[in-house]
């Protein structure tokens, strides 16, 4: 982090000229290949997408479409075999593991299908965790975590452990955790996959509220209902972008 002294604007200025200056995510000919036994699996076969600040985007596609691989790539959990990826001006495609960890910490808020909270830690401690790795002081951590929990409507559940919370509440804790470091993007992987439909609607409403407040949100889902909350849907098939735009009928929450 110490060597990264440039501001976002300065970093953006160094990007190729044809990239919009408010692009948070830019991929160019992104490819990812896996070797499975003797076979080479081409999970991504050249993906070009650009996502601008304050967009709410759904990435869709059937299983095997490369959706998960793209999500891992966007989430800086994996690096491409070929092609380039800029996240908020950082050229992620050439970073090592520890640099990726720092980028994840600073730029990305993850929301998972299975919530992925630490079971033994309270809601507050779970939300504080990204700030622990960011090196924030105890006081700052507590203040920001409380604020984030209030934002998702869990101000009165801070000292509860995950097993004392409902599914919807757990996902709210996860969203608070994703928000707390003020990331460039929130990356939600099937965020309603383990929730009943009523709770799903609440969670989607929360995402929309955050979007209205200026947050960039990427939803990875295979459910059209959920994708319909987004103004823009990117559909993958066989490792390529099949369609990109507002093709689906919008369903209001």
């Amino acid at each position, binding site marked *: 982090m110490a060597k990264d002294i440039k501001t976002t604007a300065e970093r953006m200025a160094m990007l190729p000229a044809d990239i919009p200056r408010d692009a948070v995510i830019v991929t160019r000919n992104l490819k990812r290949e896996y070797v499975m036994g003797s076979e080479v699996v081409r999970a991504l076969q050249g993906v070009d997408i650009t996502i601008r600040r304050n967009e709410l985007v759904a990435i869709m596609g059937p299983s095997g479409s490369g959706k998960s691989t793209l999500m891992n790539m966007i989430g800086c959990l994996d690096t491409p075999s070929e092609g380039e990826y800029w996240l908020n001006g950082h050229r992620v495609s050439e970073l090592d593991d520890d640099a990726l960890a720092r980028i994840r910490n600073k730029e990305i808020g993850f929301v998972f299908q299975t919530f992925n909270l*630490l079971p033994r830690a309270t809601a507050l401690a779970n939300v504080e965790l990204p700030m622990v790795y960011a090196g924030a002081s105890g006081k700052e951590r507590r203040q920001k975590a409380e604020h984030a929990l209030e934002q998702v409507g869990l101000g009165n559940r801070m000292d509860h452990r995950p097993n004392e919370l409902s599914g919807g509440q757990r996902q709210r804790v996860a969203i608070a955790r994703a928000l707390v470091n003020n990331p460039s993007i929130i990356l939600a992987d099937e965020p309603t996959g383990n929730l009943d439909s009523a709770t799903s609607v609440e969670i989607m409403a929360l995402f929309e509220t955050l979007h209205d407040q200026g947050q960039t949100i990427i939803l990875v889902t295979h459910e059209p209902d959920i994708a319909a909350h987004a103004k823009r849907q990117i559909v993958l098939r066989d490792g390529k972008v099949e369609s990109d735009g507002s093709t689906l009928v919008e369903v209001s929450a």
Partner: protein
Amino acid sequence: MMIGETIRVAFQSIRANKLRAMLTMLGVIIGVAAVITVVAMGTGAQRSVEARINSLGANLIQIQAGQDRFAGVAREGGAPLTTDDADALLREVSSITAVVPEMSRNQQVVSGNQNINVSVVGTTANYPDARNYTITHGAMFTDGDNGSRQRYAVVGSEVPKMLDVPPAAIIGRTITIRAIPFEVIGVLSEKGSQGWQNPDEQILIPLNTARYRVMGTDRLRSIAVTVAEDVPQEQAMVDLERIMRREHKIRPGGVNDFQIRSPREFLATAEETTKTFSALLLSIAGVSLLVGGIGIMNIMLVSVTERTKEIGIRKALGATKIVIMGQFLIEALVLCLTGGALGIVLGWVMSQVVSDKLGWTTEISPTAVMVAFGFSAFVGLFFGLWPARRAAGLDPIQALRYE
């Protein structure tokens, strides 16, 4: 801030698995406790040997009749120690402060209707001083008593009990040694048993009385010599040997027919024995610590596997390799150091039990405590390293998917 957080997490995960943590620590606890107890026993044994030898008189050199060799065959009684030897030593060796000849034999001693068999020692008036005794009742016989072959007896502290008489009441009594009546004029202070021989079960009589009236010989069992404080014992021993060889007319190259021993030699032997014993037990303790360390490694590997998902979450949220490694290393370290601390307590308790129940002197050595604690920290780091590296190296995608 991160270190504090990491330590907190380590304690949290240990608390979550109390029984497992306890069993894991057991190896280290036993190892550390063993080290501390063994060293405490060793140190205590050494101290008590030193104390005993000092009570016998650390400056005391003992000359004993050895075996006379004739044509390579050891014979008994070839060249005895005599009162002449004792006189010669006192006359010729300037570093000597006192010469105490001792002529002793087990004798039948009768007092009233009591009949005991004890060692009767014919010696000189300086015996109590040279051998660190005091007189608890009555008085020691004098050089004058020796010269005039008085039938006076000074008894060891056990003798009144053996004769069933209170120590104070034995003064002035008449006892018979080989049917010769003696008046008891003093009682010696207590020394405590020295193993196979109890110095408290003896009766001192004047040397000349023993020589001319009881034993009828000038043969001595031993000559004890005290040396001036400022003279090196080794040098005094060389002087003594030279005079003794001359007195016994041993040709150059000839074998000594006497033995010169100093309590320091016994001390050295005792120390050697203690060291060997301690080294043996310490190596067992070391093995226990090693096994404890392997136990910790084993459980840490299990812990890494169990918490794969947690590691994935932490990595996704921005934990770097070094942070994950630190977390597991500190956890192993906390296990080992907690085990070490408990081991120290257990070792202390065991040392107390040993000294209370077995009556052994024990002394907790601060060095042993520090070494044991340091070693358990080393065990934690060493055996925690591999599991920690394994945790740090996990792929976050795989780890997040792990159920």
